[in-house]
């Protein structure tokens, strides 16, 4: 730590990270402090770069479905889904309606669990451990659904090129319905607590404020943008899979602070429950995947709304069974840029809380 004495005031340079800032993911922050206040933030990333885009150009189209699922554990379903959508666009495969609905179901189940996880960690960061444990316990109901329907707690392995690998039956439907009912009940309570609890409000309201104009300037996406009142959601703006047939609200909050972003995530989890319930009710019969076809030479893009915001895939093929180039842009990439704005003049004690509020995903930013 460098200390420079200027008259009465002390300026520090405080390194935070690269390990365990809010969660066990490495990111290095170099904070210029003025006493208790943060004046300047430098972010250094790249500690867990795994070269996945290069790996993707060495694997065939089937293998890449599984590779992309390993980009990020919390958005693990969005990556293979978007990748498959890009391959299907290039090939001209028409995904059957049942598969479209099952794809959305997997997406929303992951979204609910991911959002609960993030707001749970928020309680952990502010030291409200019992609430943290409770939210994680509720998320555990979602984990049970994943394990019961898909066979794994994180990597659902739901998608394949042309459709999905899993199917629903009456027993699974009942199981999901029963668990979702409980989650919905708990979620109502949790939303009430997060909205009104004086301790949570004191720590999160007015902290890490992101003005709308800044959010637009930085091109932010997902719950971070929606927390600042920007109505931006790929599911509604460019509906894919079965989203056009389903009823849901695009949740926005106007506060632009840590609290608003948490509320967006919680309310979105509620919308997610609504979407899954609609699917359980009106899942169409039929095939769960379309026949495979040769992937021609050419380019394609696809985008989707991952739990953290817009996810974008670019694919180029030369007609062989290995893609020439697979490139993705992840929501966290833009959202990192919001941190210097949010942290300007904040207290040192709020740094971790603000970092957590963009729901950062290092493993997909650096892939």
């Amino acid at each position: 730590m460098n200390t420079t004495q200027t008259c009465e005031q002390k300026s520090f340079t405080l390194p935070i990270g690269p390990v365990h800032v809010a969660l066990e993911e490495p990111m290095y922050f170099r904070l210029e402090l003025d006493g208790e206040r943060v004046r300047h933030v430098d972010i250094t990333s790249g500690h867990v770069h795994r070269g996945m885009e290069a790996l993707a150009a060495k694997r065939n189209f089937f293998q890449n479905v599984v590779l992309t699922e390993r980009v990020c554990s919390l958005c693990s379903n969005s990556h293979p889904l978007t990748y498959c959508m890009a391959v299907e666009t290039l090939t001209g495969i028409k995904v059957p309606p049942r598969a479209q609905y099952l794809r959305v179901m997997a997406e929303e189940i992951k979204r609910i669990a991911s959002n609960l996880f993030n707001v749970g960690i928020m309680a952990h960061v502010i030291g409200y451990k019992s609430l943290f444990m409770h939210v994680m316990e509720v998320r555990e109901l979602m984990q049970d659904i994943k394990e019961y329907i898909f066979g794994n707690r994180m990597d659902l392995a739901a998608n394949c090129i042309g459709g999905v690998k899993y199917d629903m039956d009456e027993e699974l439907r009942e199981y999901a319905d029963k668990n979702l009912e409980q989650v919905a009940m708990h979620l109502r309570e949790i939303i009430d607590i997060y909205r009104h609890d004086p301790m949570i409000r004191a720590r999160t309201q007015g902290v890490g404020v992101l003005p709308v104009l800044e959010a637009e300037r930085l091109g932010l996406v997902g719950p971070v943008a929606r927390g600042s009142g920007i109505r931006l959601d790929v599911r509604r703006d460019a509906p894919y899979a079965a989203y056009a047939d389903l009823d849901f609200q695009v949740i926005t909050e106007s506060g632009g602070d840590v609290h608003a972003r948490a509320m967006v995530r919680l309310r979105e989890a509620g919308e997610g429950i609504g979407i899954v319930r609609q699917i359980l009710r009106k899942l169409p019969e039929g095939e769960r995947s379309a026949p495979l076809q040769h992937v021609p030479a050419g380019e394609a893009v696809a985008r989707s709304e991952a739990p953290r915001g817009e996810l974008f895939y670019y694919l180029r093929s030369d007609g062989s069974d290995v893609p020439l180039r697979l490139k993705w842009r992840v929501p966290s990439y833009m959202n990192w840029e919001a941190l210097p704005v949010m942290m300007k003049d904040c207290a040192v004690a709020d740094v971790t809380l603000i970092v957590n509020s963009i729901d950062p995903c290092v493993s997909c930013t650096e892939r």
Partner: protein
Amino acid sequence: MPRFLKILARNLLKGPSTEAFPFKEAFTPPRYRGKVVMNPNLCVGCGICTHVCPGGAIMMKESEDQNGYYFMVWHNTCAFCGSCRHYCPVKAISLSQDWHNAHYQSEKYRMVEHHFVPYLHCSSCGAHIRRLPPALAARIYSHSSVDPATIIRLCPDCRQLATAKREGEVHESSPAPQQP
């Protein structure tokens, strides 16, 4: 705070939610994706599973005496993605509910699903052929008059000959087309 105290009290009454494992069996859902298992009586040796396997966990290799092939799945390389099960045309390869993967370092080379699948001999010329399970043959030839039970015992060459002979017979026995 009082809002949360209500929840806290309820959770206290509910007791711990952790499982007693390893002192008690943990609940495993029926669709759990655990260790890969393979049924050598069903495999047709098409190799689709090795093609789609992302980790390269599956290896198929002809035996030294060329009487069949070894089929191996390395559990430590497997990502439990279920692609092999999804694409296997005869559902010979599948995922079990067994998630007990902890083992000593010294046992790592034994963490494998290992099978030997023997070739059949062509009933006409004796050449080695990969097996075609009767159920799959019945599916493939469901729209044809061919008897799947005989055809699955022939190598591709003898199958061609048999087909040519049969077609020839059909043509000879049917009346010649009338010239207008």
